[in-house]
């Protein structure tokens, strides 16, 4: 990190947001001790996540009881990922990808095995909403809410997946914003044809020039 970066005043709001995110992640992990235990194996590892738009860096330090999130770190990250927020989310949370809509390129540097293991843990995370809500609502209502939450998140995941599919179809086929694979292939063929035509024309011009200079010499 440069000295210029270090002299930037830390933002109260962004620090509060990061603290809230850290609390949410750690609360979720506490309801799933199996996943938390597997994550704790990587204690001490640092993951850097760089979002390109808006420009934002988050450093996640894995600790024995969860993760700690920071906006800056002078330590070298074990693995760094860089991309736009939707592409990063698709990569890290294994969302349904659709080129042109979601799931574009993500730049990964460092220990990619660690990243794959963390992705697997994120997919396995099983939040026990009942355990979270029981102290507030009592066990019976908590169980109902847990069931409702699972139904809702299952539906939301399917709906998001369908939305990505439909958006992909619309963008790819109906709006014409994204070319189909065949259109890209045909465009490539056309470019090749033009290139060969230009080469042939260039050769003909060279031949005519040579013939003309030969007749002038006679």
């Amino acid at each position, binding site marked *: *990190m440069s000295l210029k970066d*270090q*002299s930037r*005043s*830390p933002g*109260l709001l962004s*620090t*509060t947001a*990061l*603290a809230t995110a850290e609390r949410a992640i750690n609360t979720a992990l506490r309801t799933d001790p199996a996943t938390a235990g597997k994550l704790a194996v990587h204690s*001490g590892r640092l993951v850097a996540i760089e979002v390109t738009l808006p420009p934002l860096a988050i450093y996640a*330090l894995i*600790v*024995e*009881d969860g993760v*700690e999130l*920071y*906006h*800056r770190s*002078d*330590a070298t990250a074990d693995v760094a990922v860089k991309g736009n927020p939707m592409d990063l989310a698709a990569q890290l949370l294994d969302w349904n990808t659709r080129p042109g809509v979601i799931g574009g390129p993500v730049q990964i540097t460092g220990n990619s095995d660690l990243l794959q293991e963390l992705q697997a843990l994120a997919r396995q995370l099983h939040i026990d909403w009942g355990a979270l809500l029981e102290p507030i609502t009592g066990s019976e209502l908590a169980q109902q809410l847990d069931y409702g939450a699972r139904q809702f998140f299952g539906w939301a995941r399917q709906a998001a997946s369908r939305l990505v599919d439909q958006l992909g179809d619309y963008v790819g086929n109906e709006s014409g914003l994204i070319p189909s694979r065949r259109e890209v292939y045909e465009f490539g063929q056309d470019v090749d044809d033009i290139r060969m035509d230009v080469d042939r024309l260039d050769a003909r011009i060279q031949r005519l020039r040579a013939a003309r200079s030969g007749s002038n010499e006679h």
Partner: protein
Amino acid sequence: MSDNEKVTHFGYQQVPWQEKQQKVAGVFRSVAGKYDVMNDLISMGSHRILKRMTIELAGIRPGHSVLDLAGGTGDLAIKFSRLVGETGNVVLADINDAMLEVGRDRLIDAGCSHNTQVAQVNGECLPFEDNSFHCITIAFGLRNITDKDAALRSMLRVLKPGGRLLVLEFSTPTNKALAKAYDAYSFAVWPKLGKMIVNDADSYQYLAESIRMHPDQDTLQGMMDSAGFARTEYFNMLGGIVALHRGFKF
């Protein structure tokens, strides 16, 4: 003037120079058990965010040595312990045995005992070798030290060249309306909360008064410059209610 004749402030009172340390010790002995609960209440949780911001500016890396001075209940030391990793070292230091006892237990509970030490020290004459630490932090502690200039010189001595000092402390609000609201809140509410939670209104009356007697942002920066720190600067937080000062040893 001899030390026996010198006076200093303890809140708004003038007390003999030698007595302030004992009086401050009494305050912290009284509140140690519920110090964190009280901090959460009077700051409405914001002290945790301010400490996070301090950690982000500390530039701690694995392998570093860190001194958390006046570290009390150890919330910064726990974070530093995780950041410095297996090869680093954190010293949680405080002059007050009751606060250190709470801090030591929290470090053990958090699984941080492998790379932390606990030391009862006087900040004015730190018992560490020259050039020992990459970073020193003192959060809400400098205000209570009798001879702040001596403490700053002592911190400079034990910092490694290139190391940094971070002072997180109550300061002077930059906005007059905010200053009035803050005065009203701190003098009216803090002693009442102290009475309710720890049965000690006087300690929180002292807290409110001691903040007003503490040097403002520019004065403290000047004191750091005079002690020999380089590239000193400060960041106002919560409109200057709290300021984070930083200086380097080169």
